[in-house]
């Protein structure tokens, strides 16, 4: 079909530019209408009910698990134990020491020991009760100090001192830095363990086809790819026998980055029963699955020059890691790595200790590894500002860096919007006019933070591209975007369509997203470390460029002109300088006539210079783009009860370019709010390893009534490597919330708290101490005043 055969073109739609415009989520209608299907909602008629039996013992040697009586019960189809798995697992290839069901030893109360598949809930419950377990208890350790003490029994034979990982890093001359310091402060900080608290309960639906020996798993995962690899490894199956599908996922925040035990257990049950098994965890079990932010003790020493410049930093961080490796070594490395790249620092010494304890394993949680150390660092800066007699903003401004900048630990900063973030929140909060002028009991505090836009070196370093997006265009003129990236609510699918539509200048309604199904979508490293916008966004951009090239070539052929002469306008194209035009459907027909349906692929990998240095552990913290944030928190302290009321938060976040400003605002608000939760009330608590707050009433997530307004300013620093300049938006705003709140409390009532959460009783205790101290000081002053008079009197 030549162009002269084509019908005349009627008013094609103009080019569209969705990047930078607020877009509702492309899957939002399903969510608000209730039609979105999450794992537990998937049709599962006839599926067996899976249940997990858990250890009542915190640490012990398994002498035997007798499943005979359970298997003999009516309606029980399968019982599995650790012996039914082929290999242990762990998200980090060099630290795989966890079995889906415990083998040999149990290491925490609530650890999965065995599992059953039965016809219904009642039969499953009866089966759980009928399994006989014999365990010889060992001494158990619920705090890092106890686990590290001399003579403590090892949780894992290969880890003396129960140290999973010790990190020793020295950059620059730290001692000289302290010696040169005009002010050197040394403080200790203590942060409680917190959990992700995603509202969707964990669930997996696994189907085993005994004839084909194939497994299909649908689950709540953030990284379907890791789950796929781990299913193959733990079940001893070839990768091609497995299909992993991600339905709608109700939040993650890091809980679902690692492959989790219940997912493998469900698959093992399906295989053992020869059918389909649905395994839904209770909220208590979700808390036991854990992988949250570890309880962290930080000793921090910082030296300052006369102008407030940071001359040296020494940090010692101890993380109570729980019973298994999981992400632990990455978490303890992040804590050290992200001491860098926010400010210019003269020298840094870092000592990190990741400790095994007999508690549910910790893992990655929003702001991975860096939140508790940032609390320490910013809290100390606040105190230093007071000691130096400068405003907290001034102290930060004395330590800004200028991009491009290479940190002491070889991290690359290409864009740096922190100065603009500082200006924005200082202005928005009325800091200069209001600080110091607020009524008693009210205060303002500020802090800064940063985070990575994806880890520059993935956990599974295979040499493959970091991100791959496929675009498929067929006769209907619709473009299907295929990605393995998991939209878990952050709006990544919407963003990818915006990027592709922007390149092709086409309306977003021409696109559909399929994400994620290992049978259809290209491998992706998944949703963790805020990598998707940056990395998968770049892959989508390149895929769209490739598709556009094919379409432009087809148009050029039609017009018998050079590709360079084609003016591409999305819904239409033509020869520049002429009135010869083709509509998009016409171009598609022409392109398909040549080769059939079009498939375009885009890939992206981080440039080598962003992948960190050459020392051990250097990959952690490396990223192609750092986000930056500054915030101010206003608080009201009730002097009688110690209760805090956050009046308002002002946050400015440097997201590079806000591809979807609506979603970026939502992400930043969510991050700040989650930081407030950790700062004010959240804490997993245990008694002898028994969780005391494994429900959403005792684990105190803030309600709408307790949550403040959060005002967001977006700073767009346009990163040279990000897609359209974009960087991450979901995590970096969190880290500065707890220290900003603590600083606000200090401003409000003069007490400086170094322990999270800032519970009312802790605030009250500090206030009581302060009153006593103030009173004693006043009395001393009065005595001192009186003393010379008395001496004079006695002398007379």
């Amino acid at each position, binding site marked *: 079909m030549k162009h002269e055969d084509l019908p005349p073109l009627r008013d094609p739609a103009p080019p569209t530019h969705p990047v930078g415009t607020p877009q*509702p*989520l492309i*899957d*939002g*209608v*399903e*969510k*608000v*209408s*209730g*039609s*979105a*299907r*999450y794992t*537990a*909602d998937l049709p599962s008629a006839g599926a067996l009910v899976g249940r997990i039996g858990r250890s009542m013992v915190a640490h012990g040697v398994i002498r035997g698990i007798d499943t005979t009586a359970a298997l003999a019960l009516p309606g029980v189809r399968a019982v599995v134990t650790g012996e039914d798995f082929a290999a242990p697992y762990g998200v980090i290839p060099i630290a795989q020491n966890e079995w889906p069901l415990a083998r040999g030893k149990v290491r925490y109360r609530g650890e999965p020991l065995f599992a059953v598949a039965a016809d219904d809930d009642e039969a499953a419950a009866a089966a759980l009760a009928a399994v006989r377990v014999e365990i010889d208890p060992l001494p158990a350790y619920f705090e890092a100090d106890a686990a590290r003490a001399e003579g403590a029994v090892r949780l894992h034979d290969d880890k003396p001192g129960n140290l999973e990982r010790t990190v020793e890093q020295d950059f620059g001359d730290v001692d000289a830095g302290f010696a040169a310091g005009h002010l050197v402060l040394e403080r200790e900080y203590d942060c409680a363990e917190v959990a*992700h*608290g*995603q*509202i*969707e*309960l964990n669930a997996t639906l696994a189907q085993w086809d005994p004839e084909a020996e194939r497994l299909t798993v649908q689950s709540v995962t953030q990284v379907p790819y890791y789950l796929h690899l781990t299913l193959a490894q733990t079940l001893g199956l070839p990768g091609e026998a497995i299909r992993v599908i991600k339905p*709608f*996922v*109700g*939040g993650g*925040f890091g809980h679902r980055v690692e492959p989790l035990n219940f997912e493998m257990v469900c698959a093992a049950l399906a295989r053992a029963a020869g059918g389909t098994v649905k395994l839904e965890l*209770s*909220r*208590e079990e979700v808390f036991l699955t854990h992988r949250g932010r570890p309880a962290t003790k930080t000793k921090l020493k910082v030296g300052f020059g006369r102008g407030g410049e940071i001359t040296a930093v020494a940090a010692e961080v101890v993380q109570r890691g729980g019973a298994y490796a999981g992400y632990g070594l990455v978490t303890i490395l992040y804590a050290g790595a992200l001491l860098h790249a926010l400010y210019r620092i003269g020298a840094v010494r870092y000592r990190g200790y990741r400790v095994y304890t007999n508690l549910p394993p910790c893992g990655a949680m929003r702001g991975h590894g860096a939140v508790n150390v940032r609390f320490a660092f910013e809290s100390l800066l606040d105190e230093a500002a007071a000691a130096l007699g400068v405003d907290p903003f001034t102290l930060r401004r004395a330590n800004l860096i200028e991009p491009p900048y290479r940190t002491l630990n070889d991290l690359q900063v290409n864009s740096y919007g922190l100065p603009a973030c500082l200006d924005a929140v200082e202005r928005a909060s009325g800091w200069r006019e209001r600080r110091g002028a607020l009524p008693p009991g009210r205060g303002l505090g500020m802090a800064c933070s940063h985070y990575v836009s994806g880890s520059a070196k993935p956990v599974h370093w295979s040499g493959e591209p970091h991100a791959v997006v496929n675009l498929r265009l067929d006769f209907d003129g619709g473009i299907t975007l295929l990605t393995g990236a998991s939209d*878990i*609510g*952050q*709006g990544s699918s919407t963003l990818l369509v915006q990027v592709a539509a922007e390149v092709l200048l086409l309306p977003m309604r021409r696109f559909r997203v399929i994400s994620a199904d290992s049978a259809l979508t290209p491998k992706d490293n998944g949703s963790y470390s805020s990598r998707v916008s940056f990395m998968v966004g770049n892959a989508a951009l390149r895929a769209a460029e490739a598709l556009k090239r094919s379409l432009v070539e087809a148009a050029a052929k039609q017009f018998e002109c050079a590709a360079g002469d084609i003016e591409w306008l999305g819904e239409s194209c033509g020869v520049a300088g002429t009135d010869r035009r083709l509509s998009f459907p016409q171009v598609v027909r022409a392109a398909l006539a040549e080769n059939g349906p079009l498939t375009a692929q885009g890939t992206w990998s981080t440039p080598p210079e962003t992948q960190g240095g050459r020392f051990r552990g250097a990959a952690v913290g490396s990223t192609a783009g750092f986000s930056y944030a500054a915030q101010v928190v206003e608080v009201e302290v009730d002097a009688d009860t110690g209760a805090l009321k956050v009046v308002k938060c002002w946050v400015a976040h440097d997201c590079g370019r806000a591809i979807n400003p*609506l*979603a970026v*605002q*939502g992400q930043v*608000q*969510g991050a*700040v*709010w*989650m930081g407030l939760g950790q700062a004010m009330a959240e804490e997993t608590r245990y008694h002898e390893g028994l969780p005391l707050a494994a*429900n*959403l*009433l005792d684990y105190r*997530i803030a*309600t*709408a*009534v307790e*949550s403040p*307004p*959060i005002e967001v300013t977006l700073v767009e620093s346009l990163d040279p490597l990000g897609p359209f300049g974009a960087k991450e938006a979901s995590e970096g705003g969190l880290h500065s919330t707890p220290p900003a709140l603590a600083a606000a409390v200090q401003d409000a009532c003069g007490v400086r708290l170094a322990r999270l959460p800032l519970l009312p009783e802790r605030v009250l205790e500090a206030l009581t101490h302060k009153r006593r101290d103030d009173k004693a000081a006043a009395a001393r002053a009065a005595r001192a005043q009186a003393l010379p008079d008395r001496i004079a009197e006695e002398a007379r």
Partner: protein
Amino acid sequence: MTARVLQLHVNGRAHAVAADDHLLLVDVLRERLALTGTKQGCDGGECGACTVLVDGEPRLACITLAAAVEGRKVETIESLSSQGRLSALQRALHEKLGTQCGFCTPGMVMAAEALLRRTPQPSEQQVREAIAGNLCRCTGYVKIVEAVLSVSPTEAAR
């Protein structure tokens, strides 16, 4: 434990459901009537994701016996749209990003729906109180509150 036939009135339709006395409303809705828009996010009465309306009042379906709503009018998230078109409240939550992962959204919508029927022009504090039993882990509630407040009284009345 005895099974009997319950006469339920859900989303304008009559259903006869054979159920044990201890069966919970959330399980009847999700498993017997395939109304999976109603979610369960906790072990009972903690999170609000299962909020439905019973005679116009918000109720937690995960701690309500199915037998207790016999003869009463039950409304779930699936009833709000009309011919597949979103209600004004649903549209506001969609367009203003009052939903991120979406898991708490059905319960949140039903709690807000009950408020708007009672109080078509609520204050911000009334909105926050009305959804205080519904936990959201994604949004910090900021855009949820904005969305509910943006629904005009005439729209809310539909």
